[in-house]
């Protein structure tokens, strides 16, 4: 398989000046790096907010912060982690890896790619500045339900406009990814030969373009209800606060798949590599991903069972939601079947991938429990929900991102990370994250409500355990930053292939990948692709 990293026509050199390199860049690798570094910063900011929450909940009673500030922390933690950490991390991975995986010279629309990233710092300035404005940051939860969310002060307009900018950024990023995948594949890289990370991102990008505008519509209605006298969410004027919940969750449910499908893709790359076997059921994986995406549009009201809904609607949304377990089960089965009788080794990416499979599945099962209408009447808005979505998002999405980072880091920096430190990071994170979130299931089942700074003394022990796990997990991520910093500067030189069992175009270019790759499309040799033989 030919690689043309050294033989192309012009400009292999990186731009010299700092601004030229980072602010004005059109290079998919540099923009990918910007996204990933940004995501790491936001991960630490959002993590610091989580530490405030767990510190206040360490003991019953009000200790450290005012309840208003506690509410600001729960709201901002979610917004920062979702829109600042998880989504940009996946876009960063997409920027770095999709052109390398499909043999493209860059993203399809390189200037717009720059804009997608450089909107984010401005958007998050607007969001974070509310912390120091009179009245503080938004307090109504990231879901911004009216009428509560409209009772805030200065923060409302800033938050809504920040969300608009984040939405524009996401939509442009998604358009770029779709155009890249559909238009920039090297000759011979058929759709059903694409790596699964690229596949899952193609479907994710479609979800983003479909639902981010709906979120924009929802928050625009909030804005006009607050400032321009409309009555969308005001029953006195013939509106309905529940309308907001419908529009919001029409965005919100696909959004949770936006945050997990790319992780499915990463895991589907890593498990075959470290099992030294082709992925079991490649096509089934593609179709399962597409089915999940389709179903994600028609299940939104499972977030609203307790709000008051006709029984028929509750039944429909319950069964439709439970249907998602089928394609998700296909995926988990295929990951396990890929490992079956493989020659397994357990480097850090594989450890995170295994952690993902087990703990994401726990989150999936608690999600099934929440889908059951009568059970949800009990679980709704309790810590059971908090435990559920943190299993899906932390040990799911974020473990997936970390697996991907360890997996591809040698390709980015040219150095192997310190395997021992990586393993320490994995075990430290995995143990502490379970200490952090597993007790929250019990708290929720016992009736502890979420988003409240104080609680009954009956919940004291589990909260203290959870907080200790939280602090340990937070510290583990500071350690993660150290591991990354170390790996970016020095280490064992990485080979082109990096991992013994790795297959695909991205492993044919040098490590670190040169500034420009595949300026002329590579010649594809099916036998060297992970999925060149579509029959498996």
């Amino acid at each position, binding site marked *: 398989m030919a690689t043309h990293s050294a033989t192309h*026509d012009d*400009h292999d050199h990186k*731009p010299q000046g700092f601004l*030229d390199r980072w602010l*004005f*860049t*059109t290079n998919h690798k540099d923009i990918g790096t910007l996204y990933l570094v940004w995501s790491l910063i936001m991960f630490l900011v959002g993590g610091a907010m989580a530490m405030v929450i767990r510190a206040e909940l360490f003991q019953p009673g009000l200790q450290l912060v005012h309840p208003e500030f506690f509410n600001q922390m729960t709201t901002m933690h979610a917004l920062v982690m979702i829109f600042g950490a998880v989504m940009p991390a996946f876009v960063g991975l997409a920027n770095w890896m999709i052109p390398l995986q499909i043999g*493209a*010279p*860059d993203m*399809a*629309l390189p*200037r717009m790619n*720059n*804009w997608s990233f*450089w*909107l984010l*710092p*401005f958007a998050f300035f*607007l969001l974070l500045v509310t912390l120091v404005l009179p009245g503080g940051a938004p307090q109504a939860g990231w879901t911004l339900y009216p009428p509560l969310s409209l009772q805030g002060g200065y923060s409302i*307009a*800033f938050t809504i*406009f920040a969300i608009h*900018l984040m939405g*524009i950024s996401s*939509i442009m990023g998604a*358009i*770029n990814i*779709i*155009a890249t995948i*559909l*238009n*920039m594949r090297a000759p011979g890289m058929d759709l059903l030969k694409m790596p699964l990370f690229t596949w899952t991102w193609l479907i994710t990008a479609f979800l983003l373009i*479909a*639902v*981010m*505008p*709906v979120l924009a*519509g929802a928050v625009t*209605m909030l804005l*006009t*209800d607050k*400032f*321009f*006298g*409309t*009555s*969308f969410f*005001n*029953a*006195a*004027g*013939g*509106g*309905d606060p529940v*309308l907001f919940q*419908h*529009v919001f969750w*029409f965005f919100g449910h696909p959004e949770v798949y936006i945050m997990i499908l790319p992780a499915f893709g990463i895991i589907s790359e890593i498990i075959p590599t470290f099992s030294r076997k082709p992925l079991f059921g490649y096509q089934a994986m593609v179709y399962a991903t597409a089915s999940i995406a389709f179903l994600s549009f028609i299940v939104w009201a499972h977030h609203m069972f307790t709000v008051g809904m*006709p029984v028929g609607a509750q039944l429909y949304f319950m069964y439709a939601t439970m249907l998602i377990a089928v394609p998700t089960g296909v995926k988990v089965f295929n990951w396990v079947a890929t490992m079956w009788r493989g020659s397994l080794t357990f480097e850090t990416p594989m450890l995170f991938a295994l952690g993902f499979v087990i703990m994401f599945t726990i989150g999936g099962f608690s999600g099934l429990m929440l889908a059951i209408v009568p059970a949800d009447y009990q679980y709704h808005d309790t810590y059971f929900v908090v435990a559920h979505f943190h299993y899906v998002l932390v040990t799911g999405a974020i473990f997936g991102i970390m697996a991907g980072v360890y997996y591809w880091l040698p390709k980015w920096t040219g150095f192997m990370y310190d395997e021992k430190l990586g393993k320490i990071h994995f075990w430290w994170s995995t143990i502490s994250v379970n200490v952090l979130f597993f007790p929250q299931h019990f708290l929720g089942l016992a009736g502890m409500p979420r988003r409240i700074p104080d609680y009954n003394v009956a919940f004291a022990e589990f909260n203290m355990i959870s907080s200790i796990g939280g602090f340990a997990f937070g510290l583990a991520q500071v350690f993660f930053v150290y591991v990354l910093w170390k790996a970016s500067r020095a280490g064992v030189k990485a080979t082109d292939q990096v991992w013994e069992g790795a297959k695909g175009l991205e492993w044919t270019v040098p490590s670190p990948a040169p500034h420009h790759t595949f300026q002329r499309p590579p010649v594809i040799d099916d036998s060297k692709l992970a999925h060149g033989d579509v029959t498996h």
Partner: protein
Amino acid sequence: MAHAHTETHDPTLYYVPHGTRWPIVGSVALFSLVGGAALWLNGWAGGTVASLVGFVLLLVMLWGWFGDVIRESIRGFYNRQVDVSFRMGMIWFIFSEVMFFGAFFGALFYARALQVPWLGGEGHGALTNEFLWPGFSAVWPTNGPANIGGAFETIPAWGLPLVNTLLLLSSGVTITIAHHALRAGQRGSLLFWLAATILLGLVFLCIQLYEYHHAYTDLGLTLGSGIYGSTFFMLTGFHGLHVLLGMIMLTVIWFRCAKGHFTKENHFGFEAVAWYWHFVDVVWLGLFLFVYVM
């Protein structure tokens, strides 16, 4: 901008620009625009100035960015594959716009099919009606049980809205004729029919503005007229803004046609704007049906 003017490019390769300054200008512009708006909404002076500066900067950015792209296009940097990327970009952008309107149409359908009947006591809303809003009966149009915004009348569909529908439908025809003229290489005919399209859009917008004025001064129908006023003005208002944007795009394209930027085979800029115009047209048909007629 960067070095686009001095470079040459091998058209067998996909063109990847080396650096660009416009996106960061665009970010500063949008930040200033919405940050200023947020300040203004919170009653802080100076917000409108910041918004205005942001808006002007946004126009500068669009002018500069599109200028770079047009120059590169004329210099032949863009091969067939780049062209396809632009097409996909435009198609998916329009799809995102469809979904944005979908949110407001969804609100309208929900209001009419569910929430207003529930307030009137239908289904599980019996007690809501009995205890919270006694005497409210569900009829559309409504400004809700508290009569928010006071009494109002609606605009009958078969007057000016029908005229507007015919105007926009004709503009869809004229832009298609213009496209055929472009493909046949008849620049005179192209410019005429394109101008006709812009003119039809302009008349449409004038009628919309007249209608708004009429609604506010004579009919008592305002943005604050409960759920009817909210859905009516938000849907028609966002549509009107899109017509305005489409007209600006058409005008730019008219000048580009006059300067001879497009060839019979190669005129994606024209086609993109035509797609956008058809999209605006289709949204209007939905509006006419669901907002005015039904």
